[in-house]
């Protein structure tokens, strides 16, 4: 009984750890993605403006 409870607690802790890690990594990836592609799209817009006014 006690062993089952301990195992469940450990799994809950590792699950929470995995979820925090996932949120952290996913947020940084999403921010990096938005910044990188926004810069690229802006560069293309500026080039088009230079070429066609």
């Amino acid at each position, binding site marked *: 009984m006690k062993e089952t409870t301990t195992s469940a607690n450990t*799994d809950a*802790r*590792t*699950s*929470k*750890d*995995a*979820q*925090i*890690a*996932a*949120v*952290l*990594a*996913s*947020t*940084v*990836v*999403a921010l*990096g*993605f938005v910044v*990188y*592609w926004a810069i690229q799209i802006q560069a293309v817009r500026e080039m088009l403006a230079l070429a066609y006014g």
Partner: protein
Amino acid sequence: MSTGVLGSYTRSIAVALVIGLGLVFAFSDARIDTWFALLPIFEWMETTPFGVIGQTWGAAFAVVEAIHLLAMAVLGGSVLVSDGRLLSLVFTDVPLRQVQDACHRPFVWSLLLIILTGVFMACGVAIKIYYLDVFWYKMLALSVGVAFVFFVRRPLLRHDIEHLNPQVLRLVAVASLMIWFSVAATGRWIGYSG
């Protein structure tokens, strides 16, 4: 006591450390120094048999590139299906665990094939890609993608999926799609650069 609390969050702490070190590397002189230090390796790559074949035998390069693109298609398909299922967009009548497990094997094999054929192709045009910013962005996206899958996504999905926060699963799926979209887009971009 504090060690025990920290010990419960080893994965989160490791992810935070890797992000921190990555940012320090990106915004310091170490990035430029590493880039200069890698030039001899790229020069050597062009002199290897792979490099010579890639430069002198266009048909071989084209065949390897075709395999590379087919592997990309398989990888893209497995990513779309597994992340689409996490977002509840596709295969909603199939258990989530079953879809994730079925997609992982083709993902791993296609990733290996992509890396092997990618190394061959890189040898043929090593000096050209060395000076392309987009090549380094692709390598960054690929490294982040591999690390994300094996150190964040898979460990998360090993837990009882029914007890995981659905918002976290959606966030992971969106981030995964963003990474692999960037890998594919920057990869094609290399072909139109230089």
